[in-house]
């Protein structure tokens, strides 16, 4: 039996959550909402994260557009995702929500703009 103590990162509360794993059976205690249980399960089986960064914009009123992974990606892929983001350039105008990379680092997840950038 394995017991892991985690802090749920699902929201700013940061509830301390305990995961007890016995073979296939996973029990979660300490969460104060259902998302906490989901997070804890995922975290022990296949942890994921949302990645936020910025992409260089050509001819924009500002130099970088902030971006995020539309959904969470495997934790192990974070740096690969970052590499692809770093090597990407987009042209202004950029609209908030616009897909800037369709399948980032083979995760199947889109990179979308989180702000709009007008053209100079």
């Amino acid at each position, binding site marked *: 039996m394995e017991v892991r103590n*985690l*802090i*749920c*990162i*699902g*929201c*700013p*509360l*940061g509830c*301390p959550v305990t995961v007890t794993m016995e073979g296939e059976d996973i029990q979660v205690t300490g969460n104060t909402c259902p998302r906490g249980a989901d997070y804890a399960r995922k975290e022990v089986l296949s942890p994921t*994260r*949302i*990645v*936020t*960064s*910025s992409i*260089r914009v050509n001819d924009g*009123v*500002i*130099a*970088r557009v*902030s*971006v*995020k992974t539309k959904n969470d990606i495997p*934790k192990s892929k*974070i*740096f690969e995702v*970052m590499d692809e983001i*770093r090597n990407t350039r987009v042209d202004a105008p950029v609209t*908030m929500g616009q897909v800037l990379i369709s399948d980032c680092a083979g995760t199947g997840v889109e990179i979308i703009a*989180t*702000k*709009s950038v007008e053209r100079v």
Partner: protein
Amino acid sequence: MTHHDIVIIGGGPAGLSAAAAARKAGIQDILILERDGVLGGILNQCIHNGFGLHTFKEELTGPEYAARYIAMVEEEKIPYKLNTIVADISRDREVTYINKKEGLVTIQAGAVILAMGCRERPRGALNTPGYRPAGIYSAGTAQRLMNIEGYCVGKEVVILGSGDIGLIMARRMTLEGAKVKVVAELMPYSGGLKRNIVQCLDDYGIPLKLSHTIINIEGKERLTGITLAEVDANRNPIPGTEEHYSCDTLLLSVGLIPENELSKGAGVSMNRVTSGPNVDDRLETEAEGIYACGNVLHVHDLVDFVSQEAALAGENAAAYVKNGKAASTGRRVPLMAENGVRYTVPQVLNVDTMQDTVTVRFRVADVYKDRYIAVYYDDKLISRKKKKVLAPGEMEQVVLKKSSFADYPEIGRIKICTEVE
């Protein structure tokens, strides 16, 4: 002199929310004055997520949260001026601003809402000894350079201060290829959200050294290294615990200070603990018609609460513009922060004319486990709520009901404090 019913100083999350609320309350003539070239304030550079869970039931990044409020302002056609800095506010609400197009202009405000946010405490205020090289940045400045301008400030990083900005930048720098060697924190507890310790430090194997501080800075032109030392209960360095780290960048996340130069200029009375103005439950300062909200009033952790607070300020400023000064406010009862509670906002309650409920926000002085938050009207215990954990880095609140004061006609003070079992 041009007159505007409500002039809002700052177009960040507080200013935007106050504007939207004031418009909703029926005021047409609103003007937002913003010193940056865009609305959104500090959220524009807070590209990480974690915003909006309370307000929108979604987890948004800073810019996305700002965009929601900017959309409200644009949709309502609330006027704003960008690249405009306010030079002075008089007690009579004459607001002087400067920009390229108009030069120096003074306008008369019916009501003023202070929403200027806060600034970062620099190395100089810590009096950290050593050289004064390039490579020392407050975390927010590094964040701006990285997220707005797109520049990397350094490659080998030490961070002092485990507040959220420091933690967020630890992750950000790591993602951009820098090596963050350590995060040092003076206090025996972290100042940031627990989730950020996980997703910013633990995820990347960045060590957190509590009860540590920097005692020396090396490097004449550009930083070359720092010396950490453990501190004792009085926060003094313990000889023999020195540890040297080579680095080219030091990020400081050592305190946010509400930016109240203008408030002081207006003669508004300031609170020694919050460094923000003293306000009543209407969020009105001691200067009539001048309201305050957001980080300029007291430093918040969650922008959702900034928006709530600012909306209240907007509503009250609107009411003031419509109805003028109330003939009588009834009893004004001070709120006292005691025994582990560092401060409350508001500091004064108009118990006869308050809304049905008032949210009193506060912070505690230390990390407490299994304590009660207690509310007293004079010596009478009114409520007691047990909290497993209380931390200085996490703002708390109690809700006071207007109806509860009916039985206390002689009430002299309200006390908010912590209690052990």
